[in-house]
C-alpha cells in the first residue's frame, strides 16, 4: 500500500560504512527481497526504512513524501526483527496484541485478530507462555505473528524464517506470500536463503559491502547476472568462474578452450558457466581435466573436475560414477556462457 523510494542513501557509523549509494524504487504492493552475505547492510537498510536509523545522506520517500524526519512510530510499518525482540514481561498473546493496542484498534476486534495471527504461525497453543518458555523457532514465529497481526503500509521482515526447520519454513513461506498477496502490502524481506529469495520475490536486491550489486526479477538475477559477485552468489552450487584470456573469439585457460565468442572483446576475461549448463562428454571438448570428486545427491550427481589449478563443478547424470584422477571431458552449453571483465568483475555483453 505504499511505494518506497530510497534515493542515494548512505549510512556511516563513525568511520565504518554501513550502506553506500543505495538507490531502490520499490513499487506499491511489491515483494522485494534483500540478499547478500553477512554484514552487507541488509538490516541497516531495513532499519532506515523503518525509521530506526537515520541515513547519513540521501532521502527516503514513501508515496512521494519524504520520510527522513518522520519518527518510526508514525511510519506505519510492521517489522520482524532479526533478534525477535519479543517483550519478555508479556505473554505471547500480549506480545501479539501490543501493536493493536498501540495503534488504537478497538478492543472488541483485538482478540480475534490476535488469534488469527497466532493460528497462521501455528502458535495457538502457546499464547499463555512467556517468550523465555519458547524455543527459538517458536519465538521467531511469535515475532512474525506480531508483525502480521495488523495491516500496515509496509512489512519489513529481517530473516523471519532463519530459525525454522525445513518443513515449517516452507509452510511459513507460503503463508507469508499468501498474506502479502491478499493484503497487498509492500514487503521488504531479508534472507540468506536463495530458495526463499527466488520463490518469494517479485524483485531481488543483491548487496555486497553496503552497495547494491544488482536489482532484478529472480529470472534476471539468475540468468542475467550483472557481475561476478552476483553470478557467484546465486545458485547452488554457484556458477563456475574461470579466469583466462580472450583473443580472436577464443577463450583459453588451463585445460579449457572455447571458440566462437564475440571477436570485439579481448584481454583478461572471466568465463562463467553454471554447473547445470555443463555435461560430461566422450572425447575432447571445451574442458579437459581429471576427476577431483563425485557427489551423488540422489536426484543428480555433482562432479568436480580439476583443470589446471581450477576446480569446476559439473552437473552430471544421476548415475554418473567415476574414479578419482581419471581424465574427463566436459562440454558447455555455449548459449549460456557469461563473460566478465576480470579486473572489474563487470559483465561483458
Amino acid at each position, binding site marked *: 500500500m505504499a511505494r518506497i523510494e530510497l534515493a542515494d542513501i548512505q549510512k556511516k557509523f563513525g568511520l565504518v560504512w554501513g550502506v553506500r549509494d543505495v538507490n531502490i524504487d520499490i513499487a506499491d504492493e511489491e515483494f522485494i527481497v534483500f540478499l547478500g552475505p553477512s554484514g552487507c547492510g541488509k538490516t541497516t537498510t531495513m*532499519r532506515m526504512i*523503518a*525509521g*530506526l536509523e537515520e541515513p547519513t545522506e540521501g532521502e527516503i520517500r514513501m508515496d512521494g513524501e519524504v520520510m527522513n524526519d518522520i*519518527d*518510526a*512510530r508514525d*511510519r506505519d*510499518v*510492521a*517489522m520482524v*526483527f*532479526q*533478534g525477535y*525482540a*519479543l*517483550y*519478555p*514481561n*508479556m505473554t505471547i498473546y500480549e506480545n501479539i496484541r*501490543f*501493536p493493536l493496542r*498501540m*495503534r488504537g484498534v478497538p478492543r472488541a476486534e483485538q482478540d480475534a485478530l490476535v488469534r488469527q495471527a497466532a493460528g497462521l504461525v501455528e502458535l495457538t497453543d502457546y499464547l499463555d507462555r512467556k517468550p523465555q518458555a519458547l524455543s527459538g523457532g517458536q519465538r521467531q514465529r511469535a515475532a512474525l505473528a*506480531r508483525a502480521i497481526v495488523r495491516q500496515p503500509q509496509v512489512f519489513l521482515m529481517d530473516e523471519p524464517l532463519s530459525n525454522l526447520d525445513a518443513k515449517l519454513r516452507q509452510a511459513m513461506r507460503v503463508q507469508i506470500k499468501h498474506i502479502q498477496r491478499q493484503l497487498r502490502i509492500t514487503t521488504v524481506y531479508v534472507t540468506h536463503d536463495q530458495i526463499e529469495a527466488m520463490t518469494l520475490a517479485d524483485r531481488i536486491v543483491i548487496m555486497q559491502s553496503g552497495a547494491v550489486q544488482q536489482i532484478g526479477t529472480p529470472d534476471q538475477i539468475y540468468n542475467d547476472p550483472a557481475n561476478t559477485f552476483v553470478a557467484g552468489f546465486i545458485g547452488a552450487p554457484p556458477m563456475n568462474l574461470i579466469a583466462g584470456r580472450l583473443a580472436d573469439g577464443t577463450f583459453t585457460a588451463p585445460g579449457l578452450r572455447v571458440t566462437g565468442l564475440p571477436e570485439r572483446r579481448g584481454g583478461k576475461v572471466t568465463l562463467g558457466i553454471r554447473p547445470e549448463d555443463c555435461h560430461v562428454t566422450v572425447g575432447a571438448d571445451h574442458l579437459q581435466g581429471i576427476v577431483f570428486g563425485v557427489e551423488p545427491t540422489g536426484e543428480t550427481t555433482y562432479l568436480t573436475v580439476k583443470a589446471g589449478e581450477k576446480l569446476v563443478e559439473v552437473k552430471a547424470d544421476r548415475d554418473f560414477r567415476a574414479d578419482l584422477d581419471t581424465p574427463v571431458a566436459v562440454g558447455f552449453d555455449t548459449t549460456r556462457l557469461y563473460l566478465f571483465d576480470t579486473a572489474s568483475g563487470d559483465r561483458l555483453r
Partner: protein
Amino acid sequence: MASMRKKSRGDNLVLRYAILGAWALVCLLPVLWFLSIGLRPRTEIITPQPIYWPTFSLDAWHMIWSDWPMARYLRNSVLAIIGSVLIDLVLAIPAAYSLSRYTYRGRDDIGFYILSTRMMAPAIVAIPIFFLFRNAGLLDTIWALMLIYAAINLSFVTWIIRSYMLDIPKELEDAARTDGASDLRILWEIIIPAILPGIITASVIAMIFAINEFLFTLLIASTSQAYTMSVALANFTGGSDGVIYNAIALVAFLAFVPVFIVVVAIQKHLSRGLTMGAVKG
C-alpha cells in the same frame, strides 16, 4: 560403585548444611543476643555475674510503648523511608534511562558526577544542609527526612537502575517504537517491567541505608515530631535512668525485623541484582 557415589554425595550434603548452619548461627547470634537482652529485666542485664537461666520479662516492651511515643517514631521511620524511596525512583528511573539510552556530550561525566556524590563524607555537608533546611522551614519534619534520605540514596539507586537498563537490548525498544508506542509508554510498559528486579534491589538497599541513617536525622529532628527509630535509640542512653540497655536492644530488634522480612521475601531478586550491578559499569 553407584551406591558409593551416592553415599559420598550424601555426606557432602550433610557437610554443606553443617557449614551453612554454623555460618547462619554466627550471623544470627548478635540478633538473638540483643533480643534476649530486650526480653530480660534491667537488673539482670547489668549484673556482672553470668546468668544461665535468664528471667523473661516484658518490662522493656511496656516501657518503650508507654513511656515513649514509639508508635510515632515507627510511623516517622516508615513514612520517611517509603517517601524517600519513592522520590528516588521517580527521579532515578528517567535519569538512568537517559544515561543508558541517549548519547550526548558529557553523558559519562554526568553519570560519574552523580555517583561521586556518594564518595564524600556526609559530615562535610552536615552544617550547610542544616542551614538549608532551617531556611526552608523544614527542620523537625518528616518531609525533611524524606528529602535527605532521598538525596543520600539517589546516586546509587540511579546507578543500579542504569546498569539494568544497559542490559535491555535496544531492539526491544525499536520493536515497541515500530509497533507505535510513545517514549513514555516504552518506559512504562517495556522497560520498567523488564528491570523490575533492579528497581526492587535498589529500593531495598535504599531502605536499609535510610533505616540506619543517624547523622542527618539527628541534625534535622529535634523533637519527637520527627524522631525516627534510629534516633530514638539514642534517647535511651541519657537522662536520669542511665543507659536503658533492654529498651535499646528491643527497639533495635524492632527496626531489624521489617528489613529482615523484606530481604528474605525478595532474596532471589536481590542476589541477582547485586551481582548484576557489580559486573556492569
